[in-house]
């Protein structure tokens, strides 16, 4: 029962986050902006359209959207939302979470390479590189949480999070910062990538979905929203657990992250693609620093 509530809240958050980002950007641009739930209308229209497959597309291309959505959705089942527990929970599920997200990405990369288009090949190569560089950051973040709580399952990490000493708020705050950067990398937003760009030569994520249309594209859009919501909830849970651990706070923190992403997108230019690798490694380095900081703080507690 608890798990179902968590899942519902997660999906609800996933539907809200794109709207918050778009609204923030529109306000900062002085434009009227798209309607708040325009992304839902877009998906609705896509579901009514037919599909066009190029001759080089095989079964990987046709299966990838479903695999991507399935993997991301399964990852959601592992996350609690505030005090509500997760639907699935077992020791070590933090690692499964990271690799389910990676499975979704792998399916898309393979599908992009199957089309035989040089753009999609380039985009797939870039996505594979960034994914590989960002994966340690995600695992280190999960590792930090596991370290301070002594648990290796998300549900149990956050269940015992309420009993952490107040020094951990620093660590949780840093985790929030790393998580926002991770969302930017994983969902391909400025400064790593520009989701609104029309320039195929500069695309990372968008070029892999360039050949999809209709229901396939709809599934991929939904998978993107779910992934962003999952990472945001992870960070929101971590921070909320240090002071006020209830679903409302978690929701508010997650939406605040969306607004922060919107502000960053409005005021910053995207990186030169050659610099992206360094940028992502910096995030991983920061995640490592956070891990060491948590370790040191925890040692202090046991000794002192």
């Amino acid at each position, binding site marked *: 029962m608890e798990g179902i509530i968590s899942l519902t809240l997660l999906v609800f958050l996933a539907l809200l986050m794109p709207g918050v980002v778009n609204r923030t950007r529109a306000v900062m641009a002085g434009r009227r902006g798209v309607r708040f739930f325009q992304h839902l209308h877009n998906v609705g229209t896509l579901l009514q359209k*037919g599909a066009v497959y190029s001759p080089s597309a095989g079964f990987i291309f046709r299966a990838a959207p479903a695999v991507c959505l399935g993997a991301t959705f399964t990852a959601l089942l592992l996350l609690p939302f505030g005090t509500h527990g997760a639907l699935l929970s077992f020791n070590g599920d933090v690692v499964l979470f990271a690799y389910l997200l990676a499975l979704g990405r792998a399916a898309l990369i393979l599908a992009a390479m199957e089309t035989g288009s040089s753009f999609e090949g380039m985009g797939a190569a870039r996505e594979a590189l960034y994914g590989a560089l960002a994966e340690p950051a995600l695992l280190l973040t999960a590792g930090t949480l596991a370290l301070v709580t002594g648990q290796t399952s998300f549900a149990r990490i956050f269940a015992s999070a309420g009993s952490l000493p107040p020094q951990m708020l620093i660590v949780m705050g840093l985790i929030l910062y790393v998580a926002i950067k991770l969302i930017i990398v994983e969902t391909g937003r400025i400064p790593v990538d520009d989701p609104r760009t029309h320039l195929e030569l500069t695309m990372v994520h968008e070029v892999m979905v360039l050949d999809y249309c209709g229901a396939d594209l709809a599934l991929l859009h939904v998978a993107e929203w779910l992934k962003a919501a999952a990472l945001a909830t992870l960070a929101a849970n971590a921070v909320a657990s240090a002071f006020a651990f209830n679903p409302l706070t978690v929701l508010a923190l997650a939406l605040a992250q969306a607004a922060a992403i919107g502000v960053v997108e409005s005021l910053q230019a995207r990186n030169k693609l050659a610099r992206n690798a360094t940028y992502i490694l910096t995030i991983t380095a920061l995640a490592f620093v956070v891990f060491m900081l948590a370790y040191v703080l925890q040692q202090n507690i046991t000794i002192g």
Partner: protein
Amino acid sequence: MFRTKFRVLRSHGIQYIKRLDEAALPEIFRGRPVLTDPAEAAHPGDPQNGDAPTHTAGGDDISGPGACNGSTTRPGMTPGELAALCPTGAITATPFSLDLGRCLFCGECARRAPHLIRFTNDYHMAANDRRALVITPQTTALTPDPDLVRREITRTFGHALKLREVCAGGEGSTEMELGASMNVNFDFGRYGIDFTASPRHADGLVLTGPFTENMARALELCYEAIAEPKLLIVAGADAISGGLFAGSPAIDRRFLDRVAPDLYLPGNPVHPLTFIHGVMALTGRPFTGKKRKR
């Protein structure tokens, strides 16, 4: 850095036009023309009942001081002379009509025969029937005919529409105006309309330019790559009829023999408001309030 950002944001403020359905263009803008039947028109030299051309600024009468040759500025050309003057042959003498699909809105005909032709600043010029673009003295307004719109268009594209633009010989001004429809002032994104990068993601094609021979095959491939249901919009005089380039051997317009456009947008270039109003009318959306069920 933040101080400079703050200054830009402060000067920028809110930029979008709040009510696009109430937006009005200046008097001098040459929009939908109004024709007067030559048999009923006032004799040139009679007091004009509001038919004076609006674009000779400074109050210069076309026959007033500063005119060099009598033949250049003689008022009161006949329909036959107008037909010979028009750079694209948009004017027909009998029956007297002006084809907006060919018109380049240069305004020369209105200058030479103000008693017969007058350009208003009405930018509502979209049509979905090619014949409706031929303006006669009986035409009072121009709007797409809802009964001619294919059912799947209004059903599918009422809330979200992604368009792909293909330039097939266009000289750049209509393309820039289509891009301007997305900018912070016109912001057609608020209605769920957007231009997209890939034909696979698109719901329709917007074509500009007279369709050059060298682009003919690329155009076909792009149209085929779009999934059904899809729509076709032709924007600008060049795209609708070939414009100045109709009849050039470098043009190949056979694509339009095979695919019928869903919307025609006259203009040189097409004004963003013409484009936005045309697409909204085609997909059956109101500017305010809920979409009506059909």
